[in-house]
C-alpha cells in the first residue's frame, strides 16, 4: 500500500472526535513545553550574564612595577589576546541621525573584532566607522522606552552620527545581547576612541584581554608568577540554580507529557481494535496497520504543533509587550525573553519521538494478540 492509499484511509479518521480531544491535549502539552523551554532560555541567559559580558574577558593591572620586558612576558602567556592602555566608555548626546530628536549613546573601543558578532553590514575598517546594536535605542535608559523608538538593522546601517564635530558612519550592527551590552552602546576603533576621548584613557592601568572568561584564572596565576600583583581580580560567579530549576521543570513536564500521550494513544488504539481486527482479517499485516496509525498520529500532532506554535508566538509577544517594566531590562540586556525557535523545533522533534515510541509499543502489544481478541475487545 502506498502513501496515497494510507492518506485515503486516514483522511476519513482525522475528524474523529477522539482526534479532536488528542489535538486539544497536545495543544496544552505543547504550550507547557514552549513555556518551560522559554524559561530555560531566559534562565541560561541570566545565569551566564557575568560570564558573557565583554568585561569578563578583561584583566586590569596597575602600571606600577611594569616594564617592556614584562610586557613581552605577558604577551607570551597562554590565552592572552592583547594588552592595551585602560579605556572606559564615553557617553554623548547626539542628534538622532541628524534628526531633531535628541539622542544619547555610549561609545566603547573595539579591542578585538572577534568580540562582537556582526549581524548587518560590516565590521569597523576605517577610522570613522562605527558599529551599533542591531536593536538600537540611542537614548538614556532612564528615559521612558517606547518599543516604537527602537531602530533595527536596515534603519541603522549607512546612517551618520556626529560626535564632537566628527561625523561617524554606521557601517554595521552587532548582537548587543550576546555580550550583554546596553542597547545604546556602540563601538569605534581603539585609535579613534583614544583620539576622541583622551580623558577616558587611564595610563596608570593596562587591560589584558583574555580569549575566554574561563581562562582568566589561569592568566591571573601566570601574572602573579611574573610578579605582577596589582591585579583587579573581579571574581565572576555563575549561579546555576535557575538553570537547574528550569531543567527540572522541563523534565517533569516531558515525563507528564509522555504519560498523557501514551494513555491517550492507548485509548484511541483500543477504540479502533475492531477496525484493526477487520483489517487483519482482510489480510493487512501488522506493519501496515502500524504505518496507518503512526501516520495519523504524526499528521495530527504536526497540525497541533503548528497551531500551538502560532498561538504561543502571538499570545506570548502580546503579554511581553504589554508589561512596560520589562522594557528597562530588555534595554540593559539584563534579561532575554526572546523565543528560542531552535528549542521550539526541538520540542516538536521530541514530541514526534514520544508519539512514535508510544504508538510502536502499543501496536506491538495489541496487534500481536489473536484477531478474535481484537474483534471482541470492547
Amino acid at each position, binding site marked *: 500500500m502506498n502513501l496515497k*492509499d494510507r492518506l485515503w484511509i486516514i483522511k*476519513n479518521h482525522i475528524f474523529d472526535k477522539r482526534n479532536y480531544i488528542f489535538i486539544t491535549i497536545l495543544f496544552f502539552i505543547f504550550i507547557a513545553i514552549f513555556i518551560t523551554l522559554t524559561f530555560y532560555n531566559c534562565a541560561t541567559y541570566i545565569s551566564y550574564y557575568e560570564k558573557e559580558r565583554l568585561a569578563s574577558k578583561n584583566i586590569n593591572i596597575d602600571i606600577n612595577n611594569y616594564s617592556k620586558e614584562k610586557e613581552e612576558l605577558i604577551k607570551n602567556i597562554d590565552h592572552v589576546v592583547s594588552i592595551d592602555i585602560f579605556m572606559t566608555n564615553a557617553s554623548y548626546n547626539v542628534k538622532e541621525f541628524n534628526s531633531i530628536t535628541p539622542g544619547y549613546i555610549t561609545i566603547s573601543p573595539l579591542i578585538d573584532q572577534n568580540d562582537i558578532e556582526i549581524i548587518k553590514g560590516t565590521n569597523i575598517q576605517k577610522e570613522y566607522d562605527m558599529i551599533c546594536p542591531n536593536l538600537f535605542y540611542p537614548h538614556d535608559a532612564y528615559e521612558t522606552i517606547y518599543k516604537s523608538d527602537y531602530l533595527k538593522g536596515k534603519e541603522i546601517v549607512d546612517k551618520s552620527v556626529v560626535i564632537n564635530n566628527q561625523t561617524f558612519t554606521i557601517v554595521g550592527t552587532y548582537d548587543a545581547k550576546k555580550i550583554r551590552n546596553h542597547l545604546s552602546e556602540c563601538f569605534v576603533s581603539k585609535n579613534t576612541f583614544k583620539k576622541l576621548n583622551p580623558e577616558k584613557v587611564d595610563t596608570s592601568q593596562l587591560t589584558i584581554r583574555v580569549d575566554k572568561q574561563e581562562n582568566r584564572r589561569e592568566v591571573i596565576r601566570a601574572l602573579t608568577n611574573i610578579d605582577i600583583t596589582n591585579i583587579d581580580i573581579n571574581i565572576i560567579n555563575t549561579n546555576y540554580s535557575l538553570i537547574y530549576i528550569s531543567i527540572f521543570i522541563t523534565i517533569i513536564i516531558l515525563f507528564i507529557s509522555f504519560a498523557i500521550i501514551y494513555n491517550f494513544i492507548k485509548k484511541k488504539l483500543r477504540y479502533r481494535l475492531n477496525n484493526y481486527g477487520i*483489517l487483519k482479517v*482482510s489480510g493487512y499485516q501488522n506493519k501496515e496497520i502500524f504505518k496507518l496509525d503512526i501516520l495519523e498520529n504524526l499528521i495530527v500532532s504536526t497540525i497541533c504543533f503548528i497551531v500551538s506554535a502560532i498561538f504561543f508566538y502571538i499570545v506570548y509577544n502580546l503579554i511581553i509587550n504589554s508589561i512596560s517594566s520589562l522594557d528597562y531590562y530588555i534595554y540593559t540586556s539584563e534579561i532575554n525573553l526572546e523565543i528560542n525557535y531552535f528549542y521550539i523545533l526541538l520540542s516538536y522533534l521530541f514530541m514526534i519521538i514520544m508519539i512514535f515510541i508510544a504508538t510502536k509499543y502499543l501496536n506491538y502489544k495489541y496487534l500481536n494478540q489473536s484477531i478474535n481478541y481484537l474483534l471482541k475487545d470492547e
Partner: protein
Amino acid sequence: MNIENVCKVYKTKNDEVKALDNVSYEFKPGKLYAIMGHSGSGKSTLISILGLIETYTSGKITINNEDISKLKDNDLSNLRMKYIGFVFQDFYLDEHLKAYENVMLPMLINKEIKREERKEKAIKLLTDLGLSERINHYPKELSGGECQRVAIARSLANDPKIILADEPTGNLDEENEKLVFETLKDLAKKGKCVIVVTHSEEIKKYADEILKITKGKLEV
C-alpha cells in the same frame, strides 16, 4: 480446504478446555456448508481456525493443497487476502467510511487490483447485492440487513475462493435473514466454498451439507 485431526485446547489456570477434538473434514468449492451446534460446542472456534484468525493446538490444515501450519503471520495474512472472505455477526463496518469505501478497504493491499478499478469494483459488488442506492451511505444510515450485505460485499472484495460467515444473521430479523442466506447460497452457486456457522434452522433450506458439532467433535 482440508482439515485433519485438528485440536484446539484452551489452557486456564487450573484447567484445560478442549474446544475442538480431532476434527477432520474436506470443504469443496461450489457448496454451502452449515455448521450447527449448541452454545459452547466449538462452532466459532472451528470457523475462526478455518479463517486463519485463530491458532490450533494440533492437526493439519491445507488450503489449495498448501499446508498452513508452518506459515508465519505475514504469510497467513497473504493467504487470508487471497483466499478467504469473512463475515461476522456484528458486521464490523468502519463508521467513518461510506458503504463503497468499506468494500474498497481490502482492495488497498491487493496489488492485482489497480487503483482506478477499485471504486468501480466496489460499486458493482454492492449493486449485485441490491445496494445500488446505498453506495454513498455511512453504516449508521443503513439497516441491519444492508450492513450485513455491505459486509458480505467487503468479504468478496479480493474475489476469495472461501467465504466464512460466523452467525451472519444473529442480529437480523427474519426477512433480512432470508436475504442473507439467499446471498450466500448464490455465492456457493457461483463456485465459492461457503461455510456458515449459525443457530438458525432456516439455513437448512439453503445448505448443501449440514455439519453438527457437539463438545468439539464434528458429525456430518
